[in-house]
Structures are given as structure tokens and as C-alpha cells.
């Protein structure tokens, strides 16, 4: 994998507008219990997170399994109902819209799903899968639509004949390309990629990642790239957000985060990236214990139960996410 930084090729930062603004987003799943199924508690999958993505940039979202990355992505796309906060997309508040208005708005933000085997309808022809989003919004000449879909297939690296086939006739990587073509069909502004390569072989991963990068340049796309693999996120992102237990603990530019991680959790994560050079020995920070349950999160800083640098105050007060250096936000009492 190349590790060329994408920002080097991009436009200067100042020119760019915010495409997506997430303010204090919360997604809770109620826990029902008792005889009358009263709400006895909440699983705080996403607990008060805020970030912005500039047009044409890629924001990476990392964190371990179950930390709420996918829920964040799905909530932003309004596939899950947000419990609180605001989602402002391209200047418009989409947090509370619904029905046909929401359906219309969906043209501009699309998703690439994690599981290429489950995300394509096994009963549909690939051509129908990719043309469905277009058919949902406009009436187009049948021939013209077919030509367009075929050109999309070619663009994502599949043969034109794939149009007439069914999903089960393709490999995982090819299926993911079909999923990408479907997301591209409406020419969206934002694509949320929910661990698009985690189900793929390493050899195929880089092909799909490079395809996503090429498409970003070609179609001027903005990505929210969700992953648990730090090297993948490093390859893809301009800015990176680190999530832990439904909270955003650190947000920084790609370069800053890898060269100088501030939050103890981020430091532990980065120390876990395998080093290809056997002569270089790194000090590995091994975290003790398990992730606490989001249904019953620890008081204060969510990370204090496993933090090697935890102090007394950590269990009492939740540190807010604050800008400690230009563009580098961290939620920790140490800074």
C-alpha cells in the first residue's frame, strides 16, 4: 500500500466549505424490561459527538468493534433515528426531516456497506441493483439508463456483461465494486463508507481503496471513511477521528495524529500497528481489560477504566473535546 498523503494533491484547505456538520449527535437504543416493557435504560451507542467534514475531504473514523462507528455513519444517513443533536448537510438540517423529503435528500448522500455478501439483493440482476437508485428519482430512457449503468460498471472495474449477472456470481471484491457503483449512481456529494474493505482479502483491499481514491478525485466526492484498521484509515483520510465507547476522543489531521497522538487511547492504538521493519522495535502499549458496556458506561472519562495514565479526576469529570493545538482536538485532562 502506498502511504502518499491525499492532502498533498488536494486544494488548499481554506477554500473548502463544510459539507457535513455533526453537532452533539446522540443515538441511544432503549433497553426494555419488566412486565410492561418500560424503558429501563439506554445503550449509548453514540454519545454526544461533534465533527465537521469539508467538501472534497475524507474523514476517517476509527475505533474498536462496538464503539459506535457504524451507528454514527448510519445515523448521519438517517437510517437510524438520532436521539439528539444536529446533522447539517450542505447547509441544511436533516436531523428531523422525514418521509418523502428525506427520501429526496438521500440523493446527495450514499453509503457503501460493510458486508458485500449481504448488501446486494440476491434476487436482483446487477444491472437492476445499480439502476434502482436512479429509477427512484428520475425517469430515464431505458436504453440510455442501461448504457449509463454499463459505463458505471466499467468505471468501477467490472466488465459490461456484469449487467446481466446476479450477485452470487461475483467474488467479494467484485461485489464491493458493485456496491460502490450503486452508491455512485446518483452522483452524490457525500459517501459514507462503512468498513468497505474489512470483509475483503488484503490483496483486494488495496485495489478497492485505490478505486475509492480515484473516484473521489474524479467525482469530487467527500468521504466519511469508517474502519477499524489504522493503516487503511491512514491511507485514505485527511482528518481522523478516534472513537471510544460512543465518544470522539481525538480528532486531528492525518499527519498530526500519526506523528503525535495525544490521547492515551490513540497512543495505544497506534502502537499496535505492525512495523514492517523487523529491526525497528517499538514499544507496545497493551491495554488491560475489556471495553465497558455502553449500556452502563463508566462515570467521567469513558476511557479511565483502562487508561494507563488515569488520575483521580478522570473518574469524576468527563473531559470535553477541545482544541489543544491548531486543528488537533482531544478529550483528555492531560492537555
Amino acid at each position: 500500500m502506498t502511504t502518499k498523503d491525499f492532502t498533498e494533491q488536494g486544494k488548499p484547505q481554506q477554500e473548502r466549505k463544510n459539507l457535513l456538520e455533526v453537532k452533539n449527535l446522540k443515538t441511544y437504543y432503549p433497553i426494555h424490561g419488566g412486565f410492561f416493557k418500560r424503558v429501563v435504560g439506554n445503550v449509548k451507542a453514540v454519545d454526544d459527538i461533534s465533527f465537521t467534514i469539508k467538501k472534497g475531504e475524507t474523514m476517517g473514523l476509527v475505533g474498536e468493534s462496538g464503539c459506535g462507528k457504524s451507528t454514527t455513519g448510519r445515523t448521519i444517513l438517517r437510517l437510524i433515528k438520532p436521539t439528539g443533536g444536529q446533522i447539517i448537510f450542505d447547509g441544511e438540517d436533516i436531523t428531523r426531516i422525514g418521509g418523502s423529503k428525506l427520501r429526496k435528500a438521500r440523493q446527495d448522500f450514499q453509503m457503501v456497506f460493510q458486508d458485500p455478501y449481504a448488501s446486494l439483493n440476491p434476487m436482483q440482476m446487477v444491472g437492476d441493483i445499480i439502476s434502482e437508485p436512479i429509477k427512484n428519482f428520475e425517469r430515464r430512457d431505458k436504453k440510455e439508463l442501461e448504457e449509463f449503468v454499463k459505463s458505471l460498471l466499467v468505471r468501477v472495474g467490472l466488465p459490461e456483461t456484469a449487467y446481466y449477472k446476479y450477485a452470487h456470481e461475483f467474488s467479494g471484491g467484485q461485489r464491493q465494486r458493485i456496491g460502490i457503483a450503486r452508491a455512485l449512481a446518483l452522483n452524490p456529494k457525500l459517501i459514507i463508507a462503512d468498513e468497505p474493505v474489512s470483509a475483503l482479502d488484503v490483496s483486494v483491499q488495496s485495489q478497492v481503496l485505490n478505486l475509492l481514491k480515484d473516484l473521489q478525485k474524479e467525482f469530487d466526492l467527500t468521504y466519511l471513511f469508517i474502519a477499524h484498521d489504522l493503516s487503511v484509515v491512514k491511507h485514505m483520510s485527511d482528518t481522523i477521528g478516534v472513537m471510544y465507547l460512543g465518544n470522539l476522543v481525538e480528532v486531528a489531521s492525518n499527519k498530526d495524529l500519526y506523528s503525535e497522538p495525544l490521547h492515551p487511547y490513540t497512543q495505544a492504538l497506534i502502537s499496535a500497528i505492525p512495523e514492517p521493519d523487523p529491526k525497528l522495535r517499538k514499544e507496545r502499549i497493551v491495554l488491560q481489560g475489556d471495553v465497558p458496556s455502553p449500556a452502563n458506561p463508566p462515570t467521567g472519562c469513558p476511557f479511565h477504566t483502562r487508561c494507563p495514565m488515569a488520575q483521580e479526576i478522570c473518574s469524576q469529570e468527563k473531559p470535553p473535546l477541545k482544541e489543544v493545538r491548531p486543528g488537533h482536538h482531544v478529550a483528555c485532562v492531560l492537555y
Partner: protein
Amino acid sequence: MTTNAATGAVKRPEKSSSPWAIARRKFLKNKMAMISTVFLILVIILTLLAPFLAPYLSPIPDITKVNISKMSIAPNGDHLLGTDKSGRDVMTRLLYGGRISLLVGASATLIVVVLGTIVGSVAGFFGGAVDSLLMRFTDFVLNFPFLVFVIVLNTILFGIIDGLWVLILVIGLLSWGGVARIVRSKVLAEKENEYVLAAISIGTSPAKVIIKHLLPNVLSTIIVQSTLLFASLIVAETGLSYLGFGVPQETPSWGNMLAFANEPDVLQGKPWIWMPPALIITATILSINFIGEGLKDALNPKSQR
């Protein structure tokens, strides 16, 4: 099937097998199911051709008219399967009766499948309050005293609607609960797949998500269920007619024919009156069940044959 009809218009440069085509190949290889299919089609054709066939097999055109001079004649050249206690030709009644029994079974199945699928898929897809409401209603229908309702409705609607359609409606309206539950549980499981979420994210409306994405994927279950239902609803018709609450007595049906054979002397000494309907009912139900099993195997992607 629908998938093929939809894609038939475009030419395919390469032979590609849809999940339906794979199922069809598997079904065609299943001998028992194929024999049953041929038998069932034969029965349907024979009963449909009853007006043309009957005069050749037995020269009594009127199937309902009682003929005292010809009571309980054993099979002979004039009456291939003999006559019943009222002097009516058994062969002719068997052919016409098949029409009624199969019509009742098929129409009731259609009502059941349509109602059950709509209720089940809507409940499963939307969940929450909609689900609770629809499922409680389903429970209510499932627990309805079937026989009592049939008797009451038969009495009320007697003379207003043709007795046959009363029976079809009653059977249909009271039997969809099971299908609704099965469809709901299937939809609940299928809904978890990301392609449903993907369909919502590309702006597909809920109705279209159900019809274009969920139903094709639960259709195999519905098809298998409806064949088995078809068989059991034919039995329901037979049973009700035997009890006297089914098809009006003057209309011949397989159940009505059996109902005439509830006397010891007929049962012991005149088997030609009750054997033919009993045998044809058994054979038809068996073959439908074999077809159902064959479809189940064919439509299950995990079974390899």
C-alpha cells in the same frame, strides 16, 4: 416467474442463472415431485374437461338429478364406477366434484396467501406498534372457532351469496393467520440483511422495499407454504362437506360424495360409492405434498441434489 418476465426483454450475452433458474433445474431433477406434478395436472385437465368427457364415460348428463330406478348399481359398461344411493353416476360426479373441490382449495389458498403475505410483510417490515397491532389481530383470527363461524355464516349468508363462495370466503378469511406469522418471521430475518438498509439508503419507498426486495426473498417460503395449504384446504372442504356445512348438498364435491357414504351398508357392501372419492382425495393431497416438498428442496439454496 416474475424475474424472468422482467428480464426477458433484454438480450443476455452470456448465460446467467438467476436463483429461480437454479431452483427450476433442481425441481425438474426431483422424480417424486415431477410424477406428482404430472398427476396433478392430469387431474386438473380431466376435471376441467368434465362436460366433454362425462357423456362418453357415462351417459347421464344431469349430475344432480336423482334416479330411483338406478340406485346403487355396481360398476358396469354403462356406469364405469357404478351409481350412488340416489342413482347418480359416480364417475360423472367424481369429475364434476373435482372441479368444485379444487376450485374451493385453490381460491381459498389464494385468499389466504394474499392476506397472509400482506399482513405478515407489513408487520415484519414496519415493526413496533404496527407489528403488535397486526399480530394481535392475527392471534384473534387464529383462535377463532372455525366450525362455529362456518355454521353461523353459512346460515346467515344462505341464499344471499352462492353457497360455494360463502365456503371459500369463510375458509380463506379464517386461515391466513399461519401464513401471516410465517411471512412475518421470514421478513424479520431478511430485514436484517444490509441490502434492505441499502435499498432504504438509495431512496426506495417502503412499499417498494417490501415488494421488490423483501418479498422476492421470502417468496420461496410463501410458495412452499401455499402448496401445503392448498392440500390442507382441500381437506378442509372435504371435512366440512362431510359434516354437511360445506358445499351445498346439491353441488357435487369430493367431500359431498363421501358424505353420502356414511351408512354401514354402503361402507361394507358398496365400496364403489366411497372408494373413488376417497382414493382421489388421498392421491391428490399426497401429490400436492410431494410437490411442496420438492419445491422446498429446490428453493433452499443449501440443499444440494
